[in-house]
């Protein structure tokens, strides 16, 4: 094999499982494409309910990602850099939503923010605010499920980052906050971006916590995954069409972002 293209010679023990892995991940999507009633896709896209669900999905997933960034990056920093006691217990606690079945997560959110929850009942009595069955509830449910993905990625990036830059900044007189802002954040920006993409993708696909905590109402809480699941009940073809719409939009968004933010960093030497 010629050496002109770096890494072109993949060792066989890696190539075979990699090919199997690719087939395993890609074939179900090929199946969707093959089964899709293509002529129905145009009308489905034009249907107001589909546009509504799609818009709601994108808006809520994006808000959930922003909320996760605001809360999750500082949390990741605490997990990676601080020396507070019980850090590993804290890490285990905040990643619990990763293993919790999302439906259980939805019930758990009720116990805190529901009408009878210990914060929710206070919000209701003091301000007349109820969270369940609102778009806010969708964002909260998605954030609850998706933020751990961001925290884990950013924490990993922080641990892998070279702390000598921060040490130098400190010796030059920068405070910890300035060091975080001017040195640490730019250093781990690719890790934050990757975590945000992961978080956004997870939020976009969220089903269980959303239907439990936010319910399902067209226009306010019915996101695409909910619409797909319900369509599957009586019209599997419509469900496939909706799935493809969601798939296409999420792929397009991710590719676009990749070009914008990650494109160059992914290609060594470019």
């Amino acid at each position, binding site marked *: 094999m010629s050496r002109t293209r770096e890494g072109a010679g993949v060792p066989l023990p890696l190539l075979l499982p990699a090919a199997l892995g690719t087939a395993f991940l890609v074939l179900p999507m090929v199946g969707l494409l093959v089964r899709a009633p293509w002529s129905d896709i145009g009308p489905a896209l034009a249907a107001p309910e589909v546009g509504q669900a799609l818009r709601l999905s994108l808006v809520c997933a994006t808000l959930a990602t922003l909320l996760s960034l605001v809360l999750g990056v500082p949390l990741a920093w605490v997990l990676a850099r601080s020396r507070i006691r019980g850090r590993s217990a804290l890490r285990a606690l905040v990643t619990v939503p990763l293993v919790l079945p999302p*439906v*259980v997560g*939805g*019930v758990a959110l*009720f116990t805190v923010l*529901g*009408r*009878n929850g210990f914060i929710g009942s206070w919000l209701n009595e003091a301000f007349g605010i*109820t969270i*369940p*069955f609102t778009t806010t509830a969708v964002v909260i449910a998605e954030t609850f499920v998706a933020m751990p993905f961001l925290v884990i990625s950013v924490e990993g990036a922080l641990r892998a980052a070279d702390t000598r830059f921060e040490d130098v900044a400190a010796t030059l007189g920068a405070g910890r906050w300035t060091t975080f802002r001017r040195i640490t954040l730019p250093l781990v920006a690719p890790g934050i971006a990757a975590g945000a993409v992961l978080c956004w993708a997870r939020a976009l696909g969220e089903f269980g916590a959303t*239907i*439990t905590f936010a*319910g*399902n*109402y*067209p226009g306010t*809480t*019915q996101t695409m995954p*909910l619409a797909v*699941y*319900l*369509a*599957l*009940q*009586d*019209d*599997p073809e419509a469900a496939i069409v909706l799935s493809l719409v969601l798939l296409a939009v999420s792929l397009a968004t991710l590719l676009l972002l990749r070009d914008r933010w990650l494109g160059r960093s992914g290609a060594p030497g470019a």
Partner: protein
Amino acid sequence: MRARLALVAVPLLALAACTGSSASTDAAPSADAEPTGTVTVFAAASLTDVFTELGQQLEDQHPGLDVQFNFAGSSALAAQIEQGAPADIFASADEAPMTRVTEAGLAGDPELFASNRLVLAFPLDNPGDIRQPDTAGIPSLAQYLDHDLVLAVCAPEVPCGVAAAEVLERVGLSDAPDTFEDDVRGVLTKVELGEVDAGLVYWTDFQTARDTLGAYTFREAEAARNRYPVAVLDDAPNPRAAQAFVDLLLSDEGQQVLSDAAFFEP
């Protein structure tokens, strides 16, 4: 979910039972042979308790027989059967999913064996303060509901949602619901958690939650009641045992089990 954990366990067990049931053994096709082997019943989630009991009875009568269940939403089951799931019997909570299966040429004429109707269930502490109206006869749903109540119903894609949409339309309150749940258990959960003021659920589902919920009947429910059809599938791996199950279901004994669980006659 909820006290919901217990309810979630039911479909999970059904799923476990389902995955273990694919190896159906054919009964020997002789005229007076006992039903033996495995028979796989795909049944609406609302039938979970009664069918489990009937299955146990049938197994007691025929020691060589193993009755397996897959309980889920009727529409989802119809879809699984259309995709070639190895079922012997399909019992649906409404006629529409059964029609999908018969029109696909997968089963002959179904028989109706029970019916069910909606009630308005509410948490015992009654956060929406829903009161029995002071009128003679069975009140209308309109006398209980208004737009300020937080109301959960099933989504129109599933049988309980078809019935819910019908009764709400009759009283001009189609826009009253605040959430359309994917199945009746979802509605029940939200009422049990007290997160909604009321929910439209089946009378039989309310029976399973009597300790924590109250319920009102209303007169539109009768016209919107849903009938349960059952059919042996044409490709049933074990047609003899399947017929034995259907016979038991339609017998006086089977009908008694259904009425004990508060199902109505078809």
